[in-house]
């Protein structure tokens, strides 16, 4: 920059002179007298010199230009973060400075906009999960799953966990990380032939705090939640259901209605930009009786001095700023703005639209499945039905098949080799409302064989 002061630090040299005088210090340097001489940095930081706004825009636009994205390519890559269309109204409203330049609504009289939004979110998450209480977001689906397990351990005072096959592998990693310090024994169940998890019943015992089941699973199949609930409850354990594609909640029976005690996961699919997987939107809902074990912020209804309805943060005795080492979680800053995105999105899609959208996703995936079935060289290794994502067996290797798709300008899905090697050459593909029939036909042709074009479609 032309040696100008930073445009968003308002102090002029006159300000500095008068303010140091008012404070009674010699100069700016003197403000740091409390920092022992020998601890002070005696050089400038070794960082690139300041750039002007137009240069910063150029630099970062160039970096952005070197990333593929769902608007530059037909997109079949899911695996926990989903490419859905986000209505323009969501961005327009979430960009209101009163929302995004505020912080946690500690002072309700001047934060009702944020508080009412959270209350609306809590209400809709309860409706979608079939449960009674939802918090005001957690970091992401993975930490939400870990917090759910901790909630179950606190509630049951047990330390054994059963994890059904199909939990997102990264969630599994995060769960291990969160539990490392605690002496927890985790039983990871194998996969059944149809792609679902092996039955949980045999694994549950009276020492089990909870059974964790992701449905639809990482590989796509919808799991048998009712059986899992019965097995868990038979031993006084809790059922934690994990959801990574929230849109599936609009199609399938609410996990709460099938016996889940906690439903948690990732709500990015509800109108939050993919943004390389973060900021995302962890959610967690449970039953009223577990509310005092709930991690994170919670908003409740109350009245003001004039008897007028309003909203406040409540039951904070669960939280770190009051309970400190005895808190239900250490979370403080959460994913509030993503919650706003999702609340606006759900308000727009609503009772009817969200179900229609889920059906649309299902139909696209089913068509893709059919085309896979019809196409020599491709296979459907897993028989269990799912929502908008499933495993496709490819002739050579996942990497090769995806490279062919990319040659056709298509981001074709996720190579499963690093995740489920025993599935052989396969990719995880996801079809949302953004997938056109033409793109699907192209994808199938390219996954199947080198050089093949959409021509192979009937």
């Amino acid at each position, binding site marked *: 920059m032309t040696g100008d002061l930073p445009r968003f630090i308002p102090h002029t040299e006159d300000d500095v002179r008068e303010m140091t005088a008012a404070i009674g210090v010699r100069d700016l340097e003197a403000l740091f007298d409390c920092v022992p001489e020998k601890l002070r940095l005696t050089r*400038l930081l070794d960082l690139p010199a300041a750039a002007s706004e137009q240069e910063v825009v150029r630099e970062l636009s160039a970096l952005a230009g070197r990333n593929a994205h769902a608007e530059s390519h037909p997109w079949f890559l899911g695996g926990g973060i989903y490419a859905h269309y986000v209505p323009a109204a969501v961005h327009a409203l979430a960009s209101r400075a009163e929302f995004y330049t505020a912080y946690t609504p500690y002072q309700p009289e001047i*934060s009702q*906009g944020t508080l009412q939004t959270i209350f609306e979110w809590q209400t809709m998450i309860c409706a979608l999960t079939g449960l009674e209480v939802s918090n005001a977001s957690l970091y992401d689906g993975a930490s939400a799953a870990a917090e759910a397990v901790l909630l179950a351990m606190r509630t049951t005072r047990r330390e054994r966990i059963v994890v059904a096959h199909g939990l997102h592998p990264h969630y599994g990693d995060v769960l291990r990380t969160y539990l490392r310090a605690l002496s927890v024994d985790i039983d990871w169940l194998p996969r059944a032939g149809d792609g679902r998890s092996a039955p949980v019943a045999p694994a549950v015992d009276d020492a089990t705090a909870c059974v964790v089941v992701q449905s639809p699973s990482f590989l796509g199949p919808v799991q048998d939640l009712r059986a899992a609930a019965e097995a868990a409850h038979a031993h006084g354990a809790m059922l934690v259901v994990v959801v990574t594609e929230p849109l599936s909640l609009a199609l399938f029976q609410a996990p709460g209605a099938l016996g889940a005690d906690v439903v948690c996961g990732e709500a990015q699919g509800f109108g939050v930009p993919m943004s390389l997987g973060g900021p995302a939107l962890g959610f967690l809902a449970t039953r009223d009786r577990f509310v005092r074990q709930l991690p994170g912020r919670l908003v409740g209804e109350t009245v003001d001095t004039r008897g007028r309805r309003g909203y406040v943060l409540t039951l904070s005795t669960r939280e770190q700023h009051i309970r*400190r080492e005895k808190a239900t979680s250490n979370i403080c800053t959460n994913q509030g703005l993503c919650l706003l995105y999702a609340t606006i999105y759900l308000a727009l899609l609503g009772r009817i639209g969200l179900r229609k959208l889920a059906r649309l996703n299902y139909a696209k995936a089913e068509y893709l499945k059919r085309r896979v079935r019809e196409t020599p060289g491709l296979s459907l290794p897993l028989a269990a039905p799912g929502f908008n994502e499933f495993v496709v067996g490819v002739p050579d290797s996942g990497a090769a098949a995806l490279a062919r798709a990319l040659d056709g300008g298509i981001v074709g899905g996720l190579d499963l080799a690093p995740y489920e090697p025993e599935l052989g050459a396969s990719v995880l593909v996801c079809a949302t409302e953004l997938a056109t029939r033409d793109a699907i036909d192209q994808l199938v042709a390219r996954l199947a064989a080198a050089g093949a074009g959409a021509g192979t479609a009937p």
Partner: protein
Amino acid sequence: MSDPRDDCGPEAVGHATRGITWEEPLLFERSVRGRVGYSLPDLDVPDADPADAFGAELLRDDLPGLPELSEVDVVRHFTRLSTWNAAVDLGLYPLGSCTMKYNPKVNEALARLPGFAAAHPLQPAALAQGFLELAWRLETALAEISGMDRVTLQPAAGAQGELAGIMMVRAYHEHRGERRRVVLVPDSAHGTNPASAALNDYRVVSIPSGADGILHPEAVAHAMTDEVAALMITNPNTLGLFETHIAELCEIVHARGGLVYGDGANLNALLGIARPGDLGIDVMHFNLHKTFSTPHGGGGPGSGPVGVKNILAPYLPVPVIHRREGSEGAGFSLDYEFPLSIGRLHANFGNAGMFVRAWAYLRSLGPDGLRRCAEMAVLNANYVLAKLRDEWHVPIDRPVMHECVLSDQALAATGVTTLDVAKRLIDYGYHPPTVYFPLIVHGALMIEPTESEPREGLDRFIAALSAIAAEARSDSELVRTAPHRTRHGRLDETRAARRPVLRWQPDPPAS
């Protein structure tokens, strides 16, 4: 208007007044059967009935809990709700410990570029080189700023950064065959510190701050045993004071094989001035949403990168971004080969969108600008303190860094408490400071102006606090019943906790 509840003092001070505000019910109360706010493409493939695969009972037949609204309804709903918030873009938001600095607009525009906002975490590294380069540059810059050797961007907020940091501390000790069970935390620390230690199954031992508000070597030495895995320290601390004995404290801890965790929430005060790494800190977290201007979003998202010295590098969470020199320029890849890693903390890279904003911020400021942040933040805090010192009780009256802490003690006789002052400040157009924290100060008012506030803005804020002090003496009722200008009067938090109503439910159909 002459009603004092309505008109607060001389215009010169009153930075706010009353105006019209739109009412707005809950989404669900606005819902109308059959109203449409979505638009979906026609099906270009055959329809498929999930009942064929699942049978009806596994499917939902309705979503009664969701509203039916048009785009117009939804836009008006949230536009109106937004007008009920205070925000940095509307005025001073001196929430102590939260560094509510201004969020440059260009950062938002850049984070919304499809190349960032519409990119996917699992796309091949070859298709995400721009992002990986940005993340790598940010890690490198944070290391230089903090004097740490390595940085991970994965933690989603400061508290998760603490968790990650303490996990690394734990892994470090365990790898050396030591099973230490205690973490030392000053009594002035933020609640997340003990909570994070506890999540790691550590016993938390609280260290008393000295009468001068800082930690003293004796206190730490006294608590320091071979059982202690780490000391968690916040510097500047939550009283806004620099821990002048920091070097000695670190030596004491290191001498007994412990490590020192630095809570970087207050790093803003040290940018370009001093580096935690040089002070003896072994591991620390950054809050990009504080020091590096990413917006607070009404509660989040934040971002809590963690910096470590080389001794802790083997324990960093995976994946680690790896830079290799290639024929045509550098290339970036994801490295999972960290056998001693604590593992993953986030399903993906962490709050990547915040990396973009923070990097844009660093590029805009450069080394001089960063130092200017620290200088002006400290200048502002000391200016506020200097102007309020006479009228308000200052529990520990020493030169501060980025924030200062007052208490309501001087108003004791009037019956006006810190909470009342906070609420009355709202009438003057200010978001209240942090109240009743740090816990060691009774009735604390923790004021952090940040560098974003111009001098005349501080003068108005100072005048407002003086006016309130005067009101407390002349008309304490006015202050005790504040706020008066807001759409809502003071809200009953006790009632909310006693009879929790945590979601909307339709009234039973009056059939």
